[in-house]
């Protein structure tokens, strides 16, 4: 267990704002949003042999260890990530962290 974690959340386009809000309410100081596209396993659907990927947003939030669990679970609950198809959340253990505002 390191001192800091990065929480990565992948949700459908338009939900990033909500994720950031929940994270903020639970003590996270900031985050970064990356527009991206996702392709699932059986979701491959095509139009004229061209794949149509769905639009997603990847959100990166760095939190100190004592906050990670709270933020992660709050987001999990608020966006109902346990419900199928709503998104995905993972945490990475960080070694060096600079610039995180406390």
């Amino acid at each position, binding site marked *: 267990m390191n001192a800091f974690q990065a929480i990565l959340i992948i949700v459908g386009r338009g939900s990033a704002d909500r994720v950031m809000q929940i994270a903020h309410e639970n003590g996270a100081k900031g985050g970064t949003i990356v527009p991206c596209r996702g*392709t699932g396993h059986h979701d491959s659907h095509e139009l004229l042999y061209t794949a149509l990927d769905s639009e997603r947003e990847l959100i990166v939030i760095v939190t100190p260890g004592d906050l990670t*669990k709270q933020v992660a679970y709050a987001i999990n609950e608020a966006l109902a990530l346990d419900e199928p198809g709503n998104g995905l*959340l993972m*945490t990475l253990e960080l070694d*060096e962290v*600079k610039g995180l505002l406390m």
Partner: protein
Amino acid sequence: MDTPEIAPFSLIAVIVQRGIGSKVVSFSKDHGSSGGTIIHAYGTASRRWLKALRLDNISRDLVLMLVRDNCEEKLLDALSDYLHLGDSNTGIAFSLPVSHVLGTKKLSFDTEVTCAPPDADEAVDYYAVFSIVRDLDREDAVEKIRSTGAPGGTYIDAFGSADMSRLIFNMPSFSEKSIIVTIASHAKAREITEVLSRFLKIDEPGNGIIFAVPVHRVRGIAKEGELVI
């Protein structure tokens, strides 16, 4: 943290030429991945004359895939063969250990792919350094990273968190950010974070954040310490 869901997962990141991303995802689906997320990224060439002519940004796809730990090595090796990662200028693939995962219900892993557990842990001394900087600082930041002898990096366009105190037409404003991803040895990673945090005055609010994640396995580094991308 006593979380019940200790995930036997790894996050695999692949950086390839723009347009290949979808192929990487569909290839990986046959090798234990459940799907992937593709991000538009840009490589930064280091040749001086390319920089002078502003021809140094090369379009890339950054692919992120969550896989079960026991498939990780097999997938990386398969990708390495498929994408010829050993050759120069093809790409790079690396894996990061994931500590927890929530919301995996939607992931359906192909049960027919059986993965043998990896033989032995590779002793990899690489770190993935993620520098989230203001878009304006990006070029300087890449220069600084290069000054340590690291190969520069791949960057993606992103948005900084909402500034609730400043509303634009009743909406919180987002600032333009860049995330620079650099793979470097442990010592170099430390040097990069030091140099960058000094240069960016990182402890002042709004100037960015830098973090390093130990890389589990990596493919596409030709010689010791030299990245081909």
